[in-house]
């Protein structure tokens, strides 16, 4: 395997609430290689966004990382203090968020916000930073970049704002980019533009990418490897072709089966019954067993572990 850029080992992130402790991320491990795109998929509440915030060191109280290791190029991020972490963020480690509307500050121009990154991390002066900002905007495909640099966020469309966010995230040529639902808020034709852009940049800069999404279409389009999460745990992990061709975990199978597809017509969609369990009342044994069509008595009592069911293909199921 190639050199590992990021390695997450047995990460636990918990949220303390009035009703008890919610283990949003409950012992997950995965790694990202240089230049690789790893997709993390799952439904709302599965812990995929908390995972990304944990890596960024942005988990806010009442949440807290309570165990595990996050190694970026061998350096444990959890052992760093706030100042050291801030130095990494925006530099080696970047993130783009779902909402391009709220992730830019409305009272500063695009150039101010983009230029700040260069001034902060690369000690450029104002003029240099402006020049680099315009270059960066051109890189992410913004027309008339020399004009747009003086625009305020409200003068830009959603797609353009997301491009600006990408420009900010890539400004310092980060080793790892976390994209949390980067296209969910965008229209289909704009999503296509942004996905093309991310692919192009991934090829050019050899950046490792963690793509967090609920959209299996986007996963199939973008990812090299896929991690499927359910109820705070990894339930399956494989190469993207392998995962779509022969999913092993019943949850993954269910997700794939429940998608309406453009190239075929079915009377009824397969569906996974029920809903994601309440994290305060996790079912015993396999967390998926109340919704699983294959569940047996054993699944109710015995918790399956993540095992290699085929070369480089992990699944957490007693019957995989």
């Amino acid at each position, binding site marked *: 395997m190639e050199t590992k850029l990021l390695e997450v080992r047995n990460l636990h992130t918990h949220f303390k609430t009035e009703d008890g402790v919610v283990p949003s991320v409950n012992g997950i491990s995965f790694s990202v290689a240089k230049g690789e795109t790893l997709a993390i998929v799952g439904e709302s509440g599965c812990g995929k966004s908390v995972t990304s915030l944990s890596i960024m060191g942005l988990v806010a109280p009442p949440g807290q990382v309570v165990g595990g290791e996050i190694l970026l190029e061998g350096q444990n991020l959890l052992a760093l203090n706030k100042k050291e972490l801030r130095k990494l963020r925006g530099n080696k480690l970047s993130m783009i968020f779902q909402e391009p509307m709220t992730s830019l500050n409305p009272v500063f121009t695009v150039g101010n916000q983009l230029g700040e990154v260069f001034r902060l991390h690369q000690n450029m002066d104002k003029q240099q930073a402006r020049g680099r900002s315009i270059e960066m905007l051109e890189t992410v495909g913004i027309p008339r970049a020399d004009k747009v640099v003086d625009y305020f966020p409200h003068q830009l469309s959603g797609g353009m704002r997301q491009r600006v966010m990408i420009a900010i995230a890539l400004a310092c040529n980060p080793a790892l980019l976390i994209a949390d639902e980067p296209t969910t808020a965008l*229209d289909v034709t*704009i*999503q296509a533009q942004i996905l093309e852009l991310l692919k192009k940049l991934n090829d050019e800069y050899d950046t490792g990418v963690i793509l967090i999404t609920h959209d299996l279409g986007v996963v199939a*389009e973008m990812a090299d490897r896929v991690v499927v999460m359910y109820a705070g745990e990894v339930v399956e992990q494989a190469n993207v072709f392998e995962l779509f061709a022969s999913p092993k975990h019943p949850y993954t199978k*269910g997700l794939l089966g429940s998608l309406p597809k453009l190239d075929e017509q079915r009377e009824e969609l397969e*569906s996974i019954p029920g*809903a994601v369990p309440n994290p305060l009342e996790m079912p015993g044994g396999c967390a998926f067993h109340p919704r699983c069509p294959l569940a047996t008595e054993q699944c109710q009592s015995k918790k399956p572990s993540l095992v290699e069911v085929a070369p480089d293909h992990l699944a957490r199921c007693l019957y995989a």
Partner: protein
Amino acid sequence: MNQTQDKLLEVKGLKKHFPYKQGMFSKKMGHVRAVDGVDFTVYRGETLGIVGESGCGKSTTGQMILQLLEPTEGEIWFEGKHLTGLDKGEEKAIRRNMQMIFQDPYSSLNPRMRVEDIVAEPLRVHGLGRGREIREKVVELLRLVGLDAHHLSRHPHEFSGGQRQRIGIARALALHPSLIVCDEAVSALDVSIQSQILNLLKKLQKELQLTYIFISHGLPAVKHISDRIAVMYLGKIVELAERDELFERPMHPYTEALLSAVPIPDPTQRKERIVLQGDLPNPANPPSGCHFHTRCPYVQDMCRQSAPSLQQQADGHFVSCHFPLQELRNLI
């Protein structure tokens, strides 16, 4: 679609222009043409899908049909009745036959009300039964959408998104409507829940002979549920055809690009997509001629000058383009 051609709803030249104001003295500066001349017919028992990107006017169209917004211009005929200028009694009667399912299962249910009161509200408003009778009807409605009687006294926050959407559906069914407008009804739901709701909607349509207008930006869901599909762009219908016809032979370049832009959940089918350049134009100031010409890969001079109208190109296949695709391909 070989059903009896019984028209349930007919929309003619429907327009909605929102004035927008600017400046200190709120001068009217112009109009946002949210819907700018839309015609279509919905037949009894079918599902008409309306698909398009944000700002194309699909939701505004739905709200005008339901009388939540007053049209600026145009006519809406429902069950043979013209829907403008109705008196209060007639309007209330029409309301019984048209209902809506909303996008956001969190904001579509009043957080302070119990499930029983939410589902019973339409019955109470129309004075249909009292006390036990209403409760029995509510239980029956909940059963129909897959919920139990023990949910009656709970509040919306005690339910998951999918269950809330079921409650919203039960409320919409309470008055036995003939038409239900589903406005992004599954867009906010998780994948596995989305398929549950789509299946439920199909099952209910069969059992209760419902007619749906299914408004969504999600092409796969629209395709799954619709018999015919209208594609909207900047306040106009650019293409309308039967489902399979539309997906196999899209004639409008916008439809073609839209279909191509949807990511296919199969990594072996990664493809060169048609990526439209640029953003949606501002609907307050739409481009001259064909509204799509600023982004159209096949644009000709003619497109910049004159606006095409919706013409029937094949049986039941309407397109608003000077050069519907096949023809154009021959040219190039």
